[in-house]
């Protein structure tokens, strides 16, 4: 890798990390869009700084961007407070107005400077990471270190401010100043990132890592750490892809369609890598991820279906249940609101698990299934009796209520229940059902 690529790599990954960490507070404080407003509103500032000086100079450009960026936030606050416009609408108005003004100004500059001499201001719109030089990276490093120290020192204050600003104010924290400081640092990081990823995409650098990190943890500290990482890694990967380093490693260009090298811009690649991390997190994270939630829902449905099947077989063959009489499928179907295909599938599954076995033209419980069914019926009836005794639910309504409860509660609750009954049962005994066993399904949606 060339020296230049190293410089860019360091810059983008540091910037990604610091934006990720700060983005957590922005997202948790519900200011996620503020970064977007700052970055769009910075464009006219960049143009004005260029117009005043007539050239690109680092500090004046930074200052100009910061000035109009913060002015944009201030104006949005003013519009939403002063005119009863909703906050998101006010942010949208200010964002597009400033961006429009910025585009007009940059066109004026383009025309004035003339076709040949490019002011290079359009690079701010989409970003141009390859244009980074040593001085840029040094500034990014200093800024990152500063932000890191600030977050470490004020971790407790920022946490409280983001969670419960009212309580913070009651405790005497200067919430307004803390908020302003947070927004100021956010604006500084945003403006610093503009030359790299551009006005339009900078907000993604703030929001994506925070949103992705939230899926993996329930604590703020780990979330900050993860968000930093999830900002740095896309920064690196995006840079390596864009600089053609990956092409050299692999021996081919993974992003090229056809024979020409892909030559893709860094900023959008960084953002897309961040998006990829977000999508993976949203799908695969334990507990909060979509896959794990779908699996949990499926497990509950399966457990419910198993319990219903075993209980139906038991109750329908009472009082001769010990002889394990065979039961035809249509008898089962009549008692439960199952569709035929659901029942068939369920029976096949139960046979595979060894709870029931084929018998004659139907099925019957295996000894294992009988024992499990006994337990289930006992729990169900304990619930029913409890609900009748304590909750004054009519005996003919109690079946359904017990049904919904028993699938969700563990065995400890049931034993507790049994101790609290007016007439406790001998351990293991199955009480009589307080109502007739329905031989026909109640009307209602099918529930496997």
């Amino acid at each position, binding site marked *: 890798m060339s020296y230049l690529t190293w410089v860019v790599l360091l810059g983008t990954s540091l910037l990604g990390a610091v934006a990720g960490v700060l983005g957590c507070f922005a997202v948790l404080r519900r200011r996620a869009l503020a970064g977007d407003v700052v970055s769009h509103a910075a464009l006219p500032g960049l143009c004005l700084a260029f117009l005043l000086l007539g050239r690109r100079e680092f500090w004046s450009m930074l200052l100009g961007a910061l000035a109009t960026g913060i002015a944009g936030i201030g104006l949005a606050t003013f519009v939403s407070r002063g005119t009863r416009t909703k906050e998101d609408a006010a942010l949208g108005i200010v964002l597009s107005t400033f961006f429009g003004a910025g585009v007009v100004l940059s066109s004026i500059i383009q025309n004035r400077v003339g076709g040949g001499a490019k002011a290079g201001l359009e690079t701010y719109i989409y970003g141009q990471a390859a244009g980074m030089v040593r001085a840029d990276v040094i500034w990014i490093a200093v800024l990152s270190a500063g932000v890191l120290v600030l977050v470490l020192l004020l971790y*407790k204050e920022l*946490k409280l401010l983001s*969670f419960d600003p009212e309580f913070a104010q009651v*405790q005497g924290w200067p919430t307004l100043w803390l908020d302003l400081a947070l927004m100021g640092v956010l604006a500084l990081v945003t403006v610093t990132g503009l030359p790299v990823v551009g006005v339009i995409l900078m907000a993604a650098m703030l929001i994506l890592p925070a949103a992705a990190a*939230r899926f993996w943890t329930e604590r*703020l500290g780990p979330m900050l750490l993860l968000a930093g990482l999830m900002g740095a890694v896309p920064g690196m990967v995006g840079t390596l892809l864009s600089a053609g380093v990956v092409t050299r490693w692999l021996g081919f260009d993974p992003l090229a369609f056809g024979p020409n090298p892909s030559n893709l811009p860094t900023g959008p690649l960084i953002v897309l890598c961040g998006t990829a991390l977000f999508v993976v997190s949203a799908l695969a994270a334990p507990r909060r991820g979509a896959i794990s939630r779908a699996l949990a829902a499926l497990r509950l449905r399966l457990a419910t279906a198993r319990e219903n099947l075993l209980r139906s077989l038991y109750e329908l063959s009472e009082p001769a249940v010990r002889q394990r009489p065979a039961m035809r499928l249509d008898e089962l179907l009549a008692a439960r609101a199952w569709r035929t295909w659901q029942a068939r599938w369920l029976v096949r599954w139960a046979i595979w698990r060894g709870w029931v076995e084929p018998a004659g033209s139907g099925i019957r419980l295996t000894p294992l299934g009988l024992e499990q069914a006994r337990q289930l019926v006992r729990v169900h009836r304990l619930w029913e009796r409890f609900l009748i005794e304590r909750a004054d639910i009519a005996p003919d309504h109690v079946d359904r209520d017990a049904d919904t409860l028993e699938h969700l509660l563990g065995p400890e609750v049931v034993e507790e229940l049994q101790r609290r009954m007016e007439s406790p049962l001998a351990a293991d005994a199955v009480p009589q059902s307080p109502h007739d066993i329905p031989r026909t399904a109640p009307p209602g949606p099918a529930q496997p």
Partner: protein
Amino acid sequence: MTRGARRRGRPRQKAGGSAAACTLDWKVKPCGNNLAMPSPPLEIHDMTVAYHRKPVLWDIDLVLPERSLVGVVGPNGAGKSTLLKAVLGLVPLASGRVEIYGQPYARQRHLVGYVPQRESVDWDFPVTARDVVLMGTYGRLGWIRRPGAAERRLAEACLRQVGMEAFADRQIRQLSGGQQQRVFLARALAQDARIYFMDEPFAGVDAATEQAIVRLLQALREEGKTAVVVHHDIQTVAEYFDHAILLNMRLIACGPVATVLTRENLHKAYGGKLTLLDEAAEAVRRGARP
């Protein structure tokens, strides 16, 4: 005796303001306890609060006695929460003055505990119940210092006091509404205050939490502390509190519950909903309070 009279020895009665100027039977406790401060926990003078130039609370005057459990009641939109927020400096006063133990609020923050409405925060926030309770100690810690072993022990004790020690490491969204409310109470306890302000702690909680709050309030009174609690249910005021503040934008009455929740006062506050009022007055008459 009017408020102010005791403190400054100058009796002051507002002309025609008999309903607004209200005094509780504040008795100076003998110096048997270590809280022998001569000033009452809360004094409000001529307080008016306005949102967008529209007054929400008019001319509130009241003094609360030491060691009292005070229910703040009134119809929806009566300004109950606003009263709390104004006292705590969360909304600006249009006029008037608030004193907590004889000093402006800004100087007495360390004596104040606050339980905001449960809906006021995002429960999906990545913190555990223990983290939230520890926030109660932040005010004492000051800038930069992190909670240490002593604060952790305190948080643990506060969680135990509300029966939540088993849930200390749960993320707060994974708690039931009542449990969340108890976490907020534990956080206020961790503030180690002398006067507590609670905004609707009984709203939408389960029976276990309701009992936990009632026990907590009584424990606070035993310790010589004062609690001012916004409460939505007149039926239970007499049961839970010894004093009441009845509001409907103006102060209708305040004092011992039995003298405040009279049929006449309730009629002033709630207007025509008579069946409800009769029930409430009846509940008070039966003397739900020992």
